[in-house]
């Protein structure tokens, strides 16, 4: 049944990224525009192609890259049997999509905002940079392992200053951590805002520096999900305080409905 939240969308195209590197399989998936009345960068969808059948029960959570009047763009990397099936989608095929899900990042027009992305964590920032009314207040640091052309950086580069760091040898990681510390520290004097998305160790590093320098920071988590609507309690993360509905500190809250974007001081990673 179609409704605003769960719908069938047609695949408009599926574009592989970073073809030079056959080890990595990155794709931009363009779908027909859903009839959503609103969305926020940082929100996500659950997507389920018919080819999953009963063998692959769960939909897959994908960050929303961009939404405009004609289409919805998502971006994914093949990491397992579900994303492999997504990579086999054909143009014109219909998929089931429910969303937009969760809460997005804060957009503060006049605040110096530092975007920190690790690997696939770049996805929500494509839409963020595009939606921000004053992109000159945004800067971005992007740490990645696969070649840069595997990621959707072009539209970001068009609008804001993007610094990239590729991690190929162990020393690169130290360099990334050093850069994260320096950039977050710089923001402390400007009452700035840090927004981060990436793997858990990356987010933990950002969280540590944000708390150390007392900089406001939001972190977007990516956890394993079954339902995406707050029911299965599989994607939970631990809170540090009685928040947002939890009766007790240190309780678990759903990443799908209470997140995926959390304030850094609200969660334990």
């Amino acid at each position, binding site marked *: 049944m179609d409704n605003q939240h769960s719908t069938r969308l047609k695949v408009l195209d599926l574009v592989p990224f970073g073809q030079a590197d056959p080890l990595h399989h990155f794709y931009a998936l363009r779908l027909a525009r859903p009839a959503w009345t609103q969305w926020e960068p940082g929100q996500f969808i659950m997507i389920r192609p018919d080819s999953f059948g009963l063998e692959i029960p769960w939909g897959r959570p994908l960050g929303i890259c961009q939404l405009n009047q004609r289409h919805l763009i998502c971006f994914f990397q093949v990491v397992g049997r579900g994303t492999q099936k997504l990579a086999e989608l054909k143009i014109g095929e219909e998929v089931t999509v429910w969303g937009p899900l969760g809460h997005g990042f804060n957009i503060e027009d006049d605040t110096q905002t530092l975007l920190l992305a690790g690997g696939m964590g770049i996805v929500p920032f494509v839409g963020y940079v595009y939606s921000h009314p004053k992109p000159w207040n945004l800067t971005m640091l992007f740490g990645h392992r696969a070649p840069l052309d595997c990621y959707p950086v072009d539209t970001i580069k068009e609008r804001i200053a993007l610094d990239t760091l590729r991690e190929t040898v162990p020393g690169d990681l130290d360099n990334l951590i050093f850069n994260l510390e320096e950039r977050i520290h710089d923001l402390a004097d400007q009452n700035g805002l840090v927004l981060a998305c990436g793997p858990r160790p990356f987010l933990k590093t950002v969280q540590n520096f944000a708390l150390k320098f007392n900089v406001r920071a939001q972190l977007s988590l990516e956890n394993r999900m079954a339902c995406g609507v707050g*029911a299965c309690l*599989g994607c939970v993360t631990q809170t540090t305080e009685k928040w947002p509905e939890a009766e007790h500190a240190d309780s678990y809250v759903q990443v799908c409905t209470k997140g995926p974007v959390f304030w850094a001081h609200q969660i334990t990673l």
Partner: protein
Amino acid sequence: MNLAVKLPGQSIDLNLKNPVLTASGTFGYGREFAPYGDLNALGGFIVKGLSLAPRPGNACPRIIETTAGMLNAIGLQNDGVEHFCQKILPEIAAYNTAIIANIYGGTVEEFFELAARLNHEEKVSALEVNISCPNVKHGGVLFGQDPKMAAQVTAAVRRGAPNKHIIVKLSPNVTSIIEIAKSVEGAGADSVSCINTLLGLSVDLKTHRPSLANIVGGLSGPAIKPVALRSVWQVAKNVQIPVIGVGGITNAYDVLEFILVGAKAIQIGTANFISPTTAFDIVRTLPTVCQELGITSLDDFCGSLEC
């Protein structure tokens, strides 16, 4: 076609507008699914398991997808029965559908207290007693595996909630599910639901570790449907009280298979994760599928398996 079903209990009957319920732990408190369909269309929904005190649940990872199913070891995370009665129930009370409270206690006394607390909540249509959770270290699964303990728990809930229809949820992780079913029937259960999850294990070859922090978890989804059908068939033949079928149902045809082997009503579980509209889709398509198969009365069709 009239889809209304009556589950005649030993003490209290349960009337449903149709046989489609949603299984505990797969449908939150109902409100999570309100954006995806009309909750009033359902026969009812069974809320996430309630305990006396809040429970944080197990460490993560708690879920893993398997072939045609999933393992979960959530560990009954919930904010406790008092929170449910005061904060959640008022929010969902206006829905015109059966709200069934699933309860879990670590001791017989806890089961009694939970039942007593819910007995006077008018909007709670029935209690489903979880004697079979495989994911908590003490209690649940032991109650479900021992006919005497299962009977004790059932009798305690019966005493605590004399006004409510009492459903006892049976575990498939037993030598004879018939024996447990007969035992809870003897102790005053109004109906039984068959089946809870099957204990399973998933491992990661790259890390040499189990996929779940709890090591083992409960298997659910289409993979367990034949086990559920067999259980419902066996139990329905051997008890007088109604049987509610649950396990791997994903569409209206599956619903009718369960009714054919003797289920009066059914629960949609893991299929709510396949799509948040599954339960609503099943209610909508059930009359058409009945018509296609020449079924004119669910009551007559119930238990009509020829063998």
